[in-house]
């Protein structure tokens, strides 16, 4: 029952909306099949499949809201969950920031589903592990990786006649390869909607090459360097900056987008003019479901255009209070760039540092979005267009709001998903000047 058809989902949601005696009712039905395989020390350590289907019902009496969920869908269970939500609503305190259920939306479907991903079998997952482990064993390397795939559906409806249904798939692969003497470490990551574009045998070569190439790393002095951040290395920084785009926090004076004296920096040029960031649920490489968690239709939304802030994220409550229009919150972040690959950008670099991956990134100061974190699994010194030698990892203290003013060059965006980000992202490799490394790390 994990993946329902549109008709099956609609039948259940229609019943729920009819059963409700509240002023309004919104229901969301989601189902997923998630499979994974994990391996370490060149052996499979765990693998599993989790099936889950859930119905969440939210009702309101005036400004009192109640929510209940259930994973059984016979009429008695549906009746039970609706009544439970109604009981909770009657007991709840009034929410002064209550906003009525959304009006009927027009959802334009996006291409988020691939049959091949939904058909991934345990044998396929075991094969991914084997494709990584076997070449590593032969080359005195040690693989530790995680491959996870999901097939999902989501359906929403409310008593104002809104209805939406869409299926989606996703594949996420990461693998760390270390030399057997633990002196070198490399990494590779891929995120895709359609697994037919994935080939573990090819991907693992990148991590193996970086592992072998990172042995005997030299120590450079911490300081400001020209860096090439591979897309996976900068994605987390860009994603964290997006949390500062909340309109309410900006208006309240507690965001880097707050304006001195009150108000926000919407319309101001804050970044290099080559910075263009937008959201687009229909983007061919990073499509997402065309509505947000509230059911609001997503739109193609310019966020930063030629360095100018064009968008702040208004919740429905804050939009109503400020007289703005609330639109669906972005599910993807697309940063444009050029045509060059990371390799091409290395060729054009006289002196610099190549960063494969960044790690344990935390906010140090929300006033400036200052973030700290470390490089990991392949940091190299570039001289005269070539990787000269591996270097020891650095800790950085850098703000994406400063970093995106220090652009030398942007390459071709690739799809990235970060463990700690809610977004699917298209991020270019970035060549940046004056990136701030504050200390060395002995970690390999």
């Amino acid at each position: 029952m994990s993946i329902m058809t549109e008709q099956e989902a609609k039948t259940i949601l229609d019943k729920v909306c009819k059963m409700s005696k509240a002023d309004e009712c919104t229901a969301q039905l989601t189902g997923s099949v998630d499979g994974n395989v994990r391996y370490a020390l060149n052996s499979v350590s765990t693998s599993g499949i989790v099936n889950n289907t859930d119905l969440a019902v939210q009702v309101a009496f005036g400004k009192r809201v109640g929510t209940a969920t259930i994973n059984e869908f016979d009429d008695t269970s549906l009746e039970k969950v609706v009544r439970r939500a109604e009981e909770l609503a009657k007991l709840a305190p009034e929410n002064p920031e209550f906003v009525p259920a959304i009006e009927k939306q027009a959802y334009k479907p996006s291409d988020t589903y691939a049959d091949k991903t939904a058909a991934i079998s345990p044998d396929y997952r075991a094969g991914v592990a084997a494709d990584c482990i076997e070449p590593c064993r032969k080359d005195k390397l040690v693989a530790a990786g995680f491959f996870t795939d999901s097939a999902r559906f989501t359906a929403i409806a409310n008593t104002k006649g809104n209805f939406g249904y869409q299926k989606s798939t996703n594949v996420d692969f990461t693998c760390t390869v270390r030399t057997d003497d633990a002196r070198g470490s490399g990494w590779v990551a891929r995120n895709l909607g359609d697994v037919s574009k994935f080939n573990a045998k090819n991907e693992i070569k990148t991590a193996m090459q970086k592992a072998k190439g990172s042995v005997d790393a030299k120590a450079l002095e911490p300081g400001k360097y020209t860096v090439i951040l591979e897309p996976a290395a900068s994605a987390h920084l860009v994603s964290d900056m997006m949390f500062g785009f909340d309109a309410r926090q900006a208006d309240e004076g507690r965001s880097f987008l707050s304006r001195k004296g009150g108000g926000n920096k919407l319309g101001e040029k804050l970044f290099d003019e080559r910075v263009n960031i937008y959201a687009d649920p229909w983007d061919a490489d990073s499509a997402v479901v065309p509505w947000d968690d509230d059911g609001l239709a997503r739109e193609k939304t310019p966020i930063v255009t030629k360095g100018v802030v064009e968008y702040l994220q208004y919740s429905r409550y804050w939009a109503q209070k400020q007289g703005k229009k609330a639109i669906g919150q972005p599910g993807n972040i697309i940063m444009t760039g050029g045509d060059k690959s990371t390799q091409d950008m290395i060729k054009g670099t006289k002196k610099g540092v190549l960063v494969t991956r960044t790690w344990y990134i935390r906010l140090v100061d929300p006033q400036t979005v200052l973030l700290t974190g470390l490089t990991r699994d392949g940091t190299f010194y570039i001289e005269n267009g070539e990787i000269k030698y591996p270097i020891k990892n650095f800790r950085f203290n850098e703000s994406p709001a400063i970093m995106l003013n220090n652009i030398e060059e942007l390459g071709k965006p690739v799809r990235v998903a970060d463990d700690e980000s809610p977004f699917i992202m298209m991020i270019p490799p970035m060549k940046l000047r004056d990136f701030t490394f504050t200390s060395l790390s002995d970690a390999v």
Partner: protein
Amino acid sequence: MDRRDFIKMGGIGLGALILPAYGRHVAAEVLLTKMDAATKKKLADVALAAAKSGGATYCDVRIGRYLRQFVITREDKVQNVVNTESSGVGVRVIANGTWGFAATSDMDPDSVARAVKQALSIAKANSRMQASPVQLAPTKGVGEVSWSTPIVKNAMEVPIKEKVDLLLDVNAAAMSAGASFIRSILFLVNEQKYFASSDGSYIDQDIHRIWAPTQVTAVDKATGKFRTRDGLSAPRGMGYEYLDAKPEHRIALPGGAVVYSDSYNMKEDAIAAAKQAREKLTATSVKPGKYDLVLDPSHLWLTIHESVGHATELDRVLGYEANYAGTSFVTLDKWKSKDFKYGSDKVTIFADKTQPGTLGAVGYDDEGIKTQRWDLIKDGILVNYQVIRDQAHIIGLDHSQGCCYADSWSSVQFQRMANVSLSPGKEKLAPEDVIKNVENGIYIVGDGSFSIDQQRYNAQFGGQLFYEIKNGKVTQMLEDVAYQMRTPEFWNSCVAVCDDKDYRFGGSFFDGKGQPGQISAVSHGSSTARFNGANVINTARSLG
């Protein structure tokens, strides 16, 4: 932690609150109910019998009911009250010398037997790639036993209204004291866990935890500057009595900050937070350089957690976490040498899952092992790791140390950090005594930003309150402070640890590890300690 699996509450803004999206929403009354042990035993016996007849050489069954309540407010508003319940059965078997695991939310005998079958087939399939069979440290079954967190007041029994009234009263007090904004929350957890194994154990446990975090923001519109101050409470393995503030648990620190030990005055702390957040707006920006640090337990717990707790987990040392959380610099050769100087002779750090009132305190771990205490670092020398049953033989132990945990019935249990704590100094020493000998230092209270590398060498920590120490006296508040450290050098620079009168706990409700990610709750105790010659950086930047 995988942020995509989390729900966001309180807006998407920087520092937005992110909570694990656990379980189903239920009525508050559901949180008061329990499943009786006899029913659970019957279900467990079905699984144990099915495993035996299916060829398992070992089986354990966890029947779990995980209840959570979140009460979330800002200023004069209740943003959300959420009650969740998640229940089901997880079965782990060893067949062909290999682990297999499966779980089901259907708590009837047929479904449980089916889960056993799945676990057996996974074990048998994976055994083809298994280099050597799982080796379990022996343990004797404990029969039918039970254990409960020794609480005075079950937080789930306190009416929601009382909780809402408390938070709104706290918020109002902070706003009157100068806060521009405040967010206050109650997180309440009750894990009802039943463990049974083919070793003959039937263990029924009732575990409670509480956390009451707050965050005050002060905004200066004219300068555009804003500063936050988080509450100085600690999450605890206690009942609602933690919020009944007792005067003997109130500690006034040198310099004027007030912290709390075994009970918490939420309102008093919120008022102080409002005043201190405002004071931070004009505090002196630190001059970067070398300072002696005096670290309060409300801060030091996080440094212990990151630089010792995680570093001494044996699965990380061996490479099982290499792809995500990383490995560890505390390699087996350092332990075998018996002379690796992790810290100065003032530093004794121990693991302990028995300390009352801590987040990690349970009677038995999720492998049915009675919890215990052991040293990790003794007088500065590395002496041990944290291991579970299938790892004990690797370091020559004949028993598990009882630190196995799963965050849900549907998650497979694995090694998780015990409470890891710094032993108090043996000689009489108070924070005042430490400070009076410091010429040029910084006194840090509360935990802030934190980051550490994948082998636990290089770390950077912020804090909530920073005070300059000049010639033995606390002189003024500082801002923009973070210190960077290399783990062994940092612990070897420890020159003083206060006595047990100053011993307090901090902790984390949401410590992440594993793929797929799991969370666990863990406490860390310490007394105030001094570390010489730390590298302090200034974190202020200008956006132009």
